[in-house]
């Protein structure tokens, strides 16, 4: 085993949060940082210059982790058997330089102020008995106002395109009136919309709802960011989610944080290298990470700080795998907190329509060339007489439709069956005449949904896989029925000639894509009795280990997690740079 020179920070993973830490910590200091990335190096040019191959990127998952070497197992409850996630379905963790942010859809949200106090808000407004005994939701240790400056900085780094709805308390027409107050508007105007997004906007307005353009980490115009990166606007080519952007209009570490980090000469990303474990000293402190390169040789990278900055599931797994005499159940797990409050994101399309002789150009644009409503998200509406708490954002289908990933299921419910002459004729007429409304719902935490190590399945390196125990509960099923009704009202107001509604949520199935938003499992909290880390992602029982990303979420609100992942990483970077490294080993307060 080769032991490298010690560095200040080593991160497991070379994706979004690692690049943010590097870009925020290194330029103004003399620190050194290394990231260990399991996938290959990849760059806007030439790797994504010619990537309009939907079979390779959509159906064959060219940018995703190689499940053959390691995957995750799942079971619906603790009494059921677990089986490996053998092929991509429910979620799509990426690999390679830049991580999953290279192939993301780029919806960039700030969570709503109520989302950070979800237990208190619901108890105060509806009474304690409205929260089921098994529901283990808890307030975040920080509020919206703590994160606002970091959301703001993130949005200007990324050049987010959108329309402000609440500027310093002033509600602005055309934006999201439910958002928390922001100090500055979005740096760039909203993206264009397809004809379908426009129709959705109009229908929502007619219904008295509050539609607004999707906030997107995709540039609507040329943008020079605070680091001096010069970037071009989106070309609306229609190849976005699951692809790298060929012009760099979709924000990723490649476009934004890697250039200033690498320019310091003190940041190194070792690609095609897989971390096998976090090593600890006798006193329980982490000493660095052990990893294996593409030729199977083992390395040890000593560091003052170890950051778990891989995908949510692997961050939790790496904590659990780091068992030693000092931490017999793994790092962060001295009080059995790791794996608790594993949550997800319900993403369903309960209402779909078919408009005869109409085309919406849904093959253009990207996943953000549409519009949203937050009228039924969080506690933005009265739940007094409802049989659930929480909610979801509802959106119209964006764009970027292409055949090989869209055709199976597209005419489900409109055609008697999805093969044969009638179906073919209908497909020819209607491929661009059907559209869906989908919602992105919150995922409350439950005692029975959790992560641990699988007792049977091991990865290519002989290490136990992570086991996901997860299923939906009545709150989600009831919420789905409510959202299906609202979605149906909108799709009918959009004038669809035929409508298909899925009234029931059904059981969670891991083979059906919903979103790459597994969250929780290494949650932040106010003290070691209710969480794995403090609000900086610093592990209570091992203060020189930090966790970044959505594993920190006590539960997942009804919006995509990436914006908050970024804001939290900004806050952690600042704390490490300005405070922790001056006094290493101490808990940040």
């Amino acid at each position, binding site marked *: 085993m080769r032991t490298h020179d010690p560095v200040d920070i080593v991160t497991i993973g070379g994706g979004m949060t690692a690049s943010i830490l590097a870009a925020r910590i290194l330029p103004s200091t003399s620190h050194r940082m290394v990231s260990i990335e399991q996938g290959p190096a990849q760059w806007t040019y030439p790797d994504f210059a010619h990537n309009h191959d939907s079979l390779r990127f959509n159906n064959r998952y060219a940018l995703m982790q190689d499940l053959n070497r390691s995957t995750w197992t799942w079971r619906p409850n603790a009494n059921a058997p677990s089986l490996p996630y053998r092929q991509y379905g429910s979620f799509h963790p990426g690999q390679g330089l830049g991580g999953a942010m290279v192939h993301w859809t780029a919806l960039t949200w700030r969570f709503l102020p109520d989302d950070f106090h979800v237990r208190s808000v619901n108890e105060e407004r509806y009474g304690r008995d409205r929260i089921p005994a098994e529901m283990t939701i808890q307030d975040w240790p920080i509020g919206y106002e703590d994160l606002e400056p970091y959301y703001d900085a993130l949005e200007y780094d990324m050049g987010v395109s959108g329309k402000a709805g609440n500027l310093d308390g002033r509600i602005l027409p055309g934006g999201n009136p439910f958002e928390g107050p922001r100090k500055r508007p979005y740096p760039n105007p909203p993206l264009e919309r397809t004809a379908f997004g426009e129709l959705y906007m109009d229908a929502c307005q007619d219904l008295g709802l509050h539609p607004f353009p999707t906030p997107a980490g995709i540039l609507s115009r040329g943008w020079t960011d605070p680091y001096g990166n010069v970037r071009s606007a989106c070309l609306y080519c229609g190849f976005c989610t699951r692809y790298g952007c060929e012009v*760099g209009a979709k924000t990723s570490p490649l476009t934004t944080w890697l250039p200033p980090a690498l*320019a310091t000469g003190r940041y190194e990303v070792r690609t095609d290298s897989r971390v096998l474990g976090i090593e600890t000293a006798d006193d329980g402190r982490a000493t660095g990470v052990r990893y294996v*390169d593409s030729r199977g040789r083992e390395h040890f990278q000593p560091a003052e700080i170890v950051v778990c900055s891989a995908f949510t599931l692997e961050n939790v797994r790496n904590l659990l795998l780091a068992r030693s005499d000092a931490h017999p159940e793994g790092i962060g797990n001295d009080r059995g907190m790791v794996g608790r409050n594993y949550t997800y994101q319900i993403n369903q399309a309960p209402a779909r329509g078919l408009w005869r002789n109409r085309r919406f150009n849904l093959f253009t644009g990207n996943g953000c060339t549409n519009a949203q409503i937050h009228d039924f998200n969080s506690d933005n509406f009265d739940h007094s007489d409802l049989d659930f708490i929480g909610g979801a954002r509802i959106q119209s289908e964006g764009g970027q439709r292409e055949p090989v990933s869209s055709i199976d299921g597209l005419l489900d*419910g409109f055609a008697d*069956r999805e093969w044969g002459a009638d179906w073919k004729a209908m497909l020819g007429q209607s491929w661009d005449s059907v559209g869906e409304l989908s919602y992105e719902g919150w995922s409350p935490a439950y005692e029975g949904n959790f992560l641990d190590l699988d007792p049977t399945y091991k990865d290519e390196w002989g290490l136990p896989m992570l086991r996901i125990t997860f299923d939906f509960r009545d709150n989600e099923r009831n919420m789905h029925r409510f959202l299906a009704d609202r979605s149906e009202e909108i799709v009918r107001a959009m004038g669809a000639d035929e409508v298909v509604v899925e009234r029931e949520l059904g059981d969670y199935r*891991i083979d059906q894509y919903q979103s790459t938003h597994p969250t929780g499992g290494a949650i932040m909290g106010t003290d070691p009795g209710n969480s794995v880390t403090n609000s900086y992602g610093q592990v209570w029982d091992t203060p020189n280990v930090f966790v970044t990303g959505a594993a920190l979420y006590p539960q997942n609100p009804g919006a995509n997690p990436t914006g908050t992942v970024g804001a939290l990483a900004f806050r952690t970077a600042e704390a490490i740079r300005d405070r922790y490294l001056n006094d290493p080993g101490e808990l940040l307060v």
Partner: protein
Amino acid sequence: MTQGRERTFLGATISRRSMLGSTAIFGGLALAGCTPSSEREVPEEQSILAPDREPTPPGDLGPDAYAFFTEEEVRSLEAMVARIIPGDDDDPGALQAGVPVYIDRKLDMFEAFAEPTYRHGPFAQGYEDGEEPPADPESVPVPEDQLYRYGYQAELGPQELYRLGLAGVDRLAQTRSGSMFADLDAGQQDELLMVLDGVQQRSEGGGSGSGADPEADAGEDTGSSGPSESEMDQAEDLFGEADPGSFFNTVRIDTIEGMFSDPAYGGNRNLAGWTLIGWPGAQRSYSPHEMMHGTDKQPTSMEGLTPMNPDRAGGGREALEQPREGVHSH
């Protein structure tokens, strides 16, 4: 399976012929017009040509030769895809678009799966209510009615699934009608395929065919009764190790892929699939006007996509010249 196996990626083995074939096709195309002028670090251009990052090439077999399927299998497969997406010369379907060749190339190129797949045991062993088998380190007992929730769990790879499935289709045709599947009339073929489709829906606790939806106010109730339980049981018996439902679904999905993927993969000849649905294919851009009002752009394959040229005005040379030092593999 005619070629030597050279290297492994994603658990699949890729033949040398495939690698060479694809380089020849895409080599001059991807970077035509790229003339980096900077003396500074220039990206490795061939990364886009790396064999683990590119489509299945048609190879040098000629458009109608088969590498994986036997003659007998080709007859059954052609008959099947011709019912999944029927067509003729005026209105091309799966046969006219070369879908069987697409499927043949995919199976020839990937010994296992074209997509990342975890293929190690123990594998699931389904059981009916109250009949849980004893513990066994080689398999994981799972209630039959819960299996669909776990997604793909079969031990069979796609090559074996096709071999067993096509044989099963003929056995079922023989048992039902006394002749091979390809020799049945179209109506009989459809009835048989509906049995297979029904098995797939049954395994998910659903109705009796893809597309059926109880809540749709679309279409009309056809009043057709669908396949009976005994017909579906018979199919399962005759297919043996292969599941008739997942076999049918695999062929249906592969038919969609072959009809609508880039012609570089062997199907979608003359862009028949894209013309059918009105997809312009690989395009560099759409204007806001096109997003609202539609486009006149004609279907274009990847081969026809305008090359990227970073030296063009606004072509992104600045992005190209961003620092890259510090990112490396051991």
